[in-house]
């Protein structure tokens, strides 16, 4: 019972997921709409509560046991509580019961998002410029034929994109574009065929109950 019932559920809801693709009838589409945007999204919210519980538990343990870097766990917990309180009670557009401006200093959740989460995110994104440089230096070595091909293609495209590129030869930019349009697309398509079949096999194995590792704990 403990294992068969969930497996039946996976099978039934698997079919429920496939049907709306083929059946445009409004009865099916509205049921799918409710299931997707109401029922399942509510489950995510419950799982989020569980997830946050695990995050806070890990950091609270870290503080209790004074493990290495425990002080930073305080920062995480406090910043979470402050932003959650401002968000929950201040409302998304600063329309909640909690006032979100002191004098001219506005601190509603939207302003916090734009001035804390956004800059941190775009700076992490910007780190990629540096990481690409060190990865290219370390990895683009003509060790094997494959590595040489990787290196040569990257080289041609990096040069081709530059104004400097066409001073070397006017054909370089169009050759770089050709590499992107023919071999790159051919390689990607070949991979995508494999991915589609692998994904289909994995999906069928789970829906038909062949792959059961997700069931997790408990013998029965």
């Amino acid at each position, binding site marked *: 019972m403990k294992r068969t019932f969930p497996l039946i559920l996976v099978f039934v809801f698997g079919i429920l997921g496939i049907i709306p693709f083929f059946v445009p009838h409004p009865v099916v589409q509205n049921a799918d709409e409710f299931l997707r945007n109401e029922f399942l999204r509510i489950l995510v919210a419950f799982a989020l509560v569980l997830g946050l519980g695990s995050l806070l538990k890990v950091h609270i343990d870290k503080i209790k046991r004074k493990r290495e870097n425990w002080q930073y766990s305080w920062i995480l917990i406090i910043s979470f509580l402050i932003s959650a309180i401002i968000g929950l009670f201040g409302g998304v557009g600063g329309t909640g019961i909690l006032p979100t401006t002191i004098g001219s200093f506005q601190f509603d959740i939207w302003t916090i998002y734009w001035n804390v989460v956004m800059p941190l995110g775009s700076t992490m994104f910007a780190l990629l410029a540096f990481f690409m440089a060190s990865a290219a230096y370390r990895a*683009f070595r003509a060790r094997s034929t494959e590595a040489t091909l990787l290196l040569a293609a990257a080289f041609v495209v990096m040069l081709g994109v530059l104004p400097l590129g066409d001073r070397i030869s006017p054909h370089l930019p169009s050759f770089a574009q050709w590499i992107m349009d023919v071999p790159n697309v051919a390689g990607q398509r070949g991979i995508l065929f494999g991915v589609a079949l692998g994904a289909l096999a994995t999906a069928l194995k789970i829906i038909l109950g062949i792959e059961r590792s*997700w069931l997790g*704990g408990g013998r029965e």
Partner: protein
Amino acid sequence: MIFILLCALMALAPPSKVRAYDTPNDGGGSVTIEWQISPDDKELIGYQIYRSEDGEIYEKVGFIGPGRTRIEDETQDGPEYIYKVAAVQDTIRSYSDPSPPVMSRAHLVDRTKTNVFVSLLVFGAIILYFTYAARKGKEMFIRKIAGLQAVDDAVGRATEMGKPILYCPGIGYIEDIATIASLNILGEVAKKCAQYDTKLINPNRDPIVYTVAREIIKESYSSVGRPDSFDPDNVYYVTDSQFAYAAALDGVMIRERPATNFLVGWFRAESLILAETGASTGAIQIAGTDQVSQLPFFVTACDYTLIGEELYAASAYISKEPLLLGAIKGEDWGKFFIGIVLIIASIIGLLTTFPILGLFR
């Protein structure tokens, strides 16, 4: 008299052959109207669509540019509609004859998707046939997958150095099949960690993936007879923000110094942030994703990379379960079938005038 003549001369030619029919393959509530463009199409600013339920009162329901011959109108299923199309030039309108009445209705099956349905049946049958055929247990050959052969010694290395292993299941949701494939590999890696008693750190980006990952690791530890050494604090949720998750993982890589990093699953731009930080700590890195846009970064920065389908073959490769190996054989036959389709369709496409592309619309 002259004025009337002038009017006749000047009058715009209306569009002709106006036809209206229920839009096929939809959930109802839509009628398609078609017409032949008016001979004065060049001077028009467009066509106005008029609709009536009783043939007397017409209401404007749509407008479209010159040169076009088709439009869809949003309707109620039930009442019958009659349509007229008017050629429009500045303030002059020239109405077509009314179309026969039409009623919109919902369709049970979307016939434009039969090619998807057929491919689902064909590939599903191929895969399932070989999955169950494998039960007779004859030993099946599987080609070398470098990344997966490295799993054993990667875990062994961590044990010798007394360092943890970091397993990142990607930033995908449970609905991304790459995430599920990664969780299957996580199960196998967790079994090895339980055997060698190596610490396994598994930070997650999605709350539901976190709950599944926790169950899988707990199961792996108990299936190897070490339920007590499963430490729930090593499996935790971080945040659903992509770059906050990447920042937190970089912190774990630098501070806990895992000997081996697994970066397996669904990734976006943060792939290289993780891979390059991991490389700077000197850890062995096994990556794997079906995201073609991120594979170049993993191939460049990691020691081993599972490319696309290799990620899905992994759990069968490691566990050697007959059923799972059979599915791989089915996938191979599926690829063989695609190759045949490509050749035959190309031959048809080249030598005949049969609109082969239409089959794959």
